[in-house]
């Protein structure tokens, strides 16, 4: 999902970088606060960060003959809250940009916005909405993580469409073009990500039902 280095015009790269700064700074504070809030806080932050680190390294083959990778940002968004994810996502994206030439420094801001801001908040919103609508928790988690993943790719498509509008059909046409490349290949991966998030969250929550369920359910209040 990462926009590769140099594939956003400088003005767009700068604009997205500026947009990404406040969430990252805010989330760094949220991380410190959560890490200090309880003895388990640090471990939960570690689990959220490690999960997105792990899942974004998975380059899974996808049905349309293209390979792509998951985002893993839904787990932390549901376990702790979407506000801690931007800085964690930024670390992952920085690692990939510097060591793997995957994504880039100039496109870091745009990639943070799609993967670590939009994805986690969509996951959070879907989970809260799903629970309010009476959808069972496991199903809500699955939908939240899957749709959060897809929302990330939709955001990437929009970012590219804004930068490279179609000569005849403009931004909407370009959005369709990039969306088709990303979203279709991403659907199977989003389902995998949803399932992995359910399993991992369950292993984290079930062992600590008394306290951690409270964290997962806090989004509903």
């Amino acid at each position, binding site marked *: 999902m990462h926009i590769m280095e140099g594939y956003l015009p400088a003005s767009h790269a700068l604009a997205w970088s500026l947009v990404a700064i406040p969430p990252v700074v805010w989330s760094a504070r949220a991380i410190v606060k959560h890490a200090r809030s309880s003895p388990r806080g640090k471990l939960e932050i570690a689990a959220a960060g*490690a999960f997105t680190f792990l899942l*974004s390294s998975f380059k899974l083959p996808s049905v349309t003959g293209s390979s792509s990778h998951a985002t893993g940002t839904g787990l932390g968004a549901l376990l702790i809250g979407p506000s801690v994810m931007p800085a964690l996502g930024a670390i992952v994206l920085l690692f990939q940009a510097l060591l793997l*030439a995957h994504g880039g420094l100039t496109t870091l801001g745009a990639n943070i916005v799609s993967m670590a801001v939009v994805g986690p908040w969509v996951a959070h919103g879907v989970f809260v909405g799903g629970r309010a609508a009476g959808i069972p928790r496991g199903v809500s988690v699955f939908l939240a993580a899957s749709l959060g993943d897809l929302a990330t790719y939709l955001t990437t498509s929009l970012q590219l469409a804004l930068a*490279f509008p179609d000569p005849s059909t403009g931004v909407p046409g370009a959005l369709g073009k990039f969306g088709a*490349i990303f979203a279709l290949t991403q659907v199977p991966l989003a389902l995998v990500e949803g399932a992995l998030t359910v399993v991992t969250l369950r292993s*984290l929550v079930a062992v600590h039902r008394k306290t951690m369920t409270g964290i997962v359910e806090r989004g509903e209040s």
Partner: protein
Amino acid sequence: MDRPSSPPRRKRTSVARTTLLVIVGVALAYAGAALLGDRLRFGGTDDRASSAILEGDPGYRRWISPLWAPSSKTAEVLLFGLQAMIGAGVLGFAIARLRGSSARDARDPRDVDAGE
């Protein structure tokens, strides 16, 4: 005096075991995906997006390139593997420790230490 929590030594073993299990599981999944991807010659979505940009706007010049890139396909796979291993290790450790701390209820570990 009876303690509801498991003895420290057993707990340490189970932390190591859970961590190891997660790492092994991830390694298998990762190797499977990498092998399958290589065999079927999957290209990356990101690359397809890049070529779509150049198709729609042939005049676009990539204005900056990565400072450093893995020198070979093998190096790239290994680095992605390294990323997966770090993630799996930390995740496994965190899950195992959170399991351990559930046995001690929500008490601060320092309270437990003080009682020993």
